[in-house]
């Protein structure tokens, strides 16, 4: 028989300095009438308070406690509410430790009062331990407390030590009870104490118009105090209405670029807030969570086993996320969004004082087994959870305006749906779960589908909640968050044979004689052939001016020579251009990943902008050239099952007849060129469309028609001499020698150059 032991250790902060010895400037009677008690509350020179940790250990009163582990035996009770691990939903429920002590007389020896010899009273007969403690410390919030459990045969180092941070204390009460309440470290992510970004205190000192390119902050000096210099650029939100990019700062004056993140440039009033935005660009989830926990919650980096987070993320997710958070938001909310979007389980491992990070997945079939031989009698329980079932996962991604609410569906460009309709038939009804993934950038369909696959895989069959108790001396000590298998009489397959059910422990309470386990059935039905090296970018809606490298960086980690990038332009989708000087689709700069394999599948169309038609005039006016479609400076493979069209040229103006002349038609393109007005100011010409150029104007000499896709615009009919020439067609492909066509080259219209 083992004898159970239970200890509590509290790290009490105290000053390492000696009273009145430099750098401590305290002196009697100038700073106080008696010497301090090395605590902040009694410090007489707080500027020089030099904190060190003084650990106090407590035990219960019991004969089984060994003398060689010194402890104050005033521990009256420990109430431990274990954490609940949330699987893919949020940060779960915090562990809570409530420790109650009995008050007693205390001699202040053992290092409790460095200046004991200077006191003019007998500390044992004056006051009590906790009464004096309370008189010396205002708060212990954030200080470490440890719950230690073991047996008489163990050394302290061999015992289980669970780590928490103190939340509050209370007492001593009239009946001599003193209580310390502690939480796990993730409590510090709660919104009432950790916000990201941090609230900015600057505001506009004067009105700015919708086209001003600088602003001045108030109060004076706030620029240097709170706002970065502008190298690199950063973003601020003004008055909650517009996000601007700050490119430089001089004192309180910010140089800005307007209307960022799809917000609109508008005028702002004096006093409008200027809030620093928190922007993550192409960062993996482990980076984001680490940044939030360490830099916004103040948690020690020691709590985060970052390399293991990286390995887990790389092997099971391999994706990066981008977001702009324009207003202070609770870190718990942001972290929970990441947990849901990435399909994670993030929890506090109190045994090792680490924050754990797992991607949802399967339980190993050789995991340890809990069955009738080691489950304590009458403790096994099982409960269905139909409310947790999901048959369709709708992932909204590609947030448009960060200043709008996260759960507004019309604030997202795209939705990715992952569904199991067979399961719906089996269960009788759909079960739809919506995820608002502002962290997934535009064009991140494959990332969104992965999110859906993880969530659906976990919840397409609703997991059962299982509870059981395991004897303390069981050879396999259960670990929170880990996977196991269970067998019980009530768990059977279709033949009635005993079935083994995989579980993941979501709550674990270590009592003196047993482990109380709460677990979720760990069902996981793979919904995709996940390949952590897959780097697919899906263009599933009309877009303008795609730079493949920029899109890649928003979604995936830095590429290397082994990376294979697949970009798919879905059928019916047109990638166009807003400017004839810009390519509709740029493959981009991949010079840092020489050898990268890029595969472009075009089921839809890449199309340059159409050139504008000429304005009718008495002189000779040519149509504008059409815009280019595709450019690559690196080798790529193209499977063109759709179209590559350059913009058609705009039509030239017509001959003048009695001072009248028709404008040219707009060239075909995406968007088409605008038809030119006739010389009298009326517009009779047609605009280009994605399929054809517009007709020329009809006043006087007709204007030339706009060119069709990939074609130059037409000259104005020229019976006279002042007609205009049609604009040239844009370039269909620039860098064609870098392209290897897979199969037929497809429909390509417009010049191809290198």
């Amino acid at each position, binding site marked *: 028989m083992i004898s159970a032991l239970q200890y509590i250790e509290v790290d009490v902060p105290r000053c390492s300095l000696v009273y009145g010895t430099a750098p401590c400037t305290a002196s009697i009677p100038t700073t106080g009438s008696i010497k301090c008690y090395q605590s902040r509350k009694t410090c007489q020179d707080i500027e020089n308070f030099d904190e060190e940790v003084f650990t106090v250990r407590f035990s219960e009163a019991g004969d*089984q406690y060994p*003398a060689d582990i010194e402890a104050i035996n005033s521990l009256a009770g420990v109430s431990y509410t274990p954490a609940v691990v949330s699987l893919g939903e949020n940060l779960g429920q915090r562990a809570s430790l409530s420790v109650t002590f009995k008050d007693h007389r205390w001699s202040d020896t*053992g290092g409790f009062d460095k200046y004991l010899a200077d006191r003019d009273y007998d500390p044992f007969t004056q006051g009590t331990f906790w009464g004096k403690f309370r008189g010396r410390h205002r708060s212990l919030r954030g200080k470490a407390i440890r719950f230690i459990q073991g047996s008489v045969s163990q050394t302290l180092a061999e015992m289980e030590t669970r780590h928490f941070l103190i939340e509050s204390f209370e007492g001593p009460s009239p009946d001599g009870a003193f209580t310390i309440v502690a939480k796990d470290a993730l409590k510090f992510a709660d919104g009432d104490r950790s916000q990201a970004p941090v609230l900015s205190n600057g505001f506009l000192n004067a009105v700015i118009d919708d086209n001003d390119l600088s602003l001045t902050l108030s109060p004076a000096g706030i620029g240097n105090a709170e706002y970065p210099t502008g190298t690199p650029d950063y973003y601020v939100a003004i008055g909650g209405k517009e996000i601007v990019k700050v490119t430089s700062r001089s004192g309180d004056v910010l140089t800005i670029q307007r209307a960022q993140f799809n917000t609109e440039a508008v005028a702002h009033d004096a006093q409008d807030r200027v809030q620093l935005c928190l922007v993550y660009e192409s960062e993996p989830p482990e980076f984001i969570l680490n940044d939030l926990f360490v830099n916004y919650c103040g948690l020690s980096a020691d709590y985060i086993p970052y390399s293991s987070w990286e390995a887990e993320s790389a092997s099971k997710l391999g994706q990066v996320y981008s977001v702009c958070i324009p207003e202070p938001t609770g870190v718990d909310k942001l972290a929970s969004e990441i947990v849901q979007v990435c399909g994670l389980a993030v929890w506090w491992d109190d045994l090792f004082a680490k924050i754990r990070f797992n991607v949802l997945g399967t339980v190993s079939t050789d995991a340890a087994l809990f069955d009738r031989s080691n489950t*304590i009698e009458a403790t096994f329980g099982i409960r269905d959870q139909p409310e947790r079932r999901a048959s369709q996962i709708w992932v909204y991604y590609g947030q448009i305006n960060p200043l709008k609410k996260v759960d507004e569906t019309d604030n997202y460009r795209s939705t990715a749906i992952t569904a199991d309709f067979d399961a719906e038939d089996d269960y009788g009804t759909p079960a739809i779960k919506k995820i608002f993934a502002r962290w997934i950038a535009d064009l991140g369909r494959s990332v969104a589908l992965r999110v859906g696959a993880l969530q659906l895989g976990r919840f397409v069959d609703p997991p059962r909640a299982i509870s059981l108790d395991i004897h303390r001396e069981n050879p396999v000590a259960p670990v929170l968050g880990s996977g196991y298998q269970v067998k019980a009489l009530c768990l059977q397959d279709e033949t009635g044979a005993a079935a083994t059910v995989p579980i993941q422990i979501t709550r674990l309470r270590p009592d003196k004689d047993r482990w109380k386990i709460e677990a979720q059935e760990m069902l996981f039905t793979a919904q995709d052939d996940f390949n952590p090296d897959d780097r697919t970018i899906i263009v599933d809606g009309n877009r303008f001016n795609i730079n493949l490298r920029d899109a890649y960086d928003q979604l995936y980690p830095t590429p290397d020579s082994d990376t294979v990038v697949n970009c798919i332009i879905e059928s019916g989708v047109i990638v166009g251009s807003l400017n004839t000087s810009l390519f509709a689709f740029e493959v981009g700069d991949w010079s840092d990943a020489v050898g990268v394999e890029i595969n472009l599948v075009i089921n839809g169309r890449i199309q340059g902008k159409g050139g504008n038609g000429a304005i009718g005039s008495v002189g000779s006016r040519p149509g504008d050239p059409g815009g280019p479609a595709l450019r690559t400076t690196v080798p790529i493979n193209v499977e063109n099952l759709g179209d590559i069209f350059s913009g058609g040229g705009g039509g030239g103006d017509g001959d003048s007849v009695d001072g009248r002349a028709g404008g040219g038609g707009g060239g075909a393109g995406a968007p088409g060129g605008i038809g030119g007005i006739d010389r009298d100011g009326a517009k009779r010409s047609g605009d280009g469309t994605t399929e054809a150029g517009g007709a020329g104007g009809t006043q006087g000499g007709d204007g030339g028609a706009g060119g069709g896709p990939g074609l130059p615009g037409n000259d104005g009919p020229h019976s006279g001499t002042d007609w205009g020439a049609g604009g040239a067609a844009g370039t269909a492909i620039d860098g064609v020698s870098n392209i290897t066509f897979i199969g037929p080259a497809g429909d390509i219209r417009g010049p191809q150059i290198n």
Partner: protein
Amino acid sequence: MLVISQALSLTLTDSPDANCPVIGWHNLVTAAGITADHEDADYPATNLANPATAILQGWKSDSTDDQYVTFDVTSENEIDYLGIANHNFGTDEIPVTIEYPDPENPGDWLVLVEQFQPEDDAPLLLRFVPTFLTQIRIKLEPDAVSPRMSVVYVGAILAIPRKIYVGYQPMTLIADTSVQTNWSEGGDFLGSILINEKRSTSMTFRNLLPAWVRATLQPFLSVCKTQPWFWAWRPAAYPLEVGFVTALQASKPSNSRPNGMMEVDFQVGGIAP
């Protein structure tokens, strides 16, 4: 462990009172009157004056040399016992001798209780011939481990005039334990865990003379719940059965016989082995 000096032993031999219970509650030790040859700064010898048995509130030497802890115990009455609670003299094999100043040769010390080696770390109750003393000292002769002790009482022993007979449960023999035994769903024995272990017992002093209760026992009764005391229930027969206990409830003497004799019940808990 109860140890009797050789001189007192001669007196008690064949005495009918040798097995009457004794209580060591009277204490003349003060923090100002303690001097130790060696002490750990965090565990000063002044701690020996408080009755807390926690090691953190006790004295620790920082030396393994032979050493003394000396107590000034000026009293108008004779003293006849020294009690020690929570020490390491048994575990770490540290012989103990009690000495007092030689009244005829100032500076010299005489042996009061001859050197002995405690068998374990249980409370020690050392009795000697009643003597007027101004000082008393404990000589410790450690080997490899520095000595420590938490509580020292020096004073006049309270001898109960009536023995304890049937029904008494010596607290040294068995502890009050809380044990959880678990069985598996399949009916297998999984094991037992000792959750807690404490020492307690109860006793009744019967047939006490009313005058003795009022004159001698009453001062003890007034502090027996607030201050721990050394307790030996049958000193001659069971000298190893000594505890350092407090009354868990108020003990009130009652008039139990027509002739006025009284009795007192005690429920006590504390450290014993």
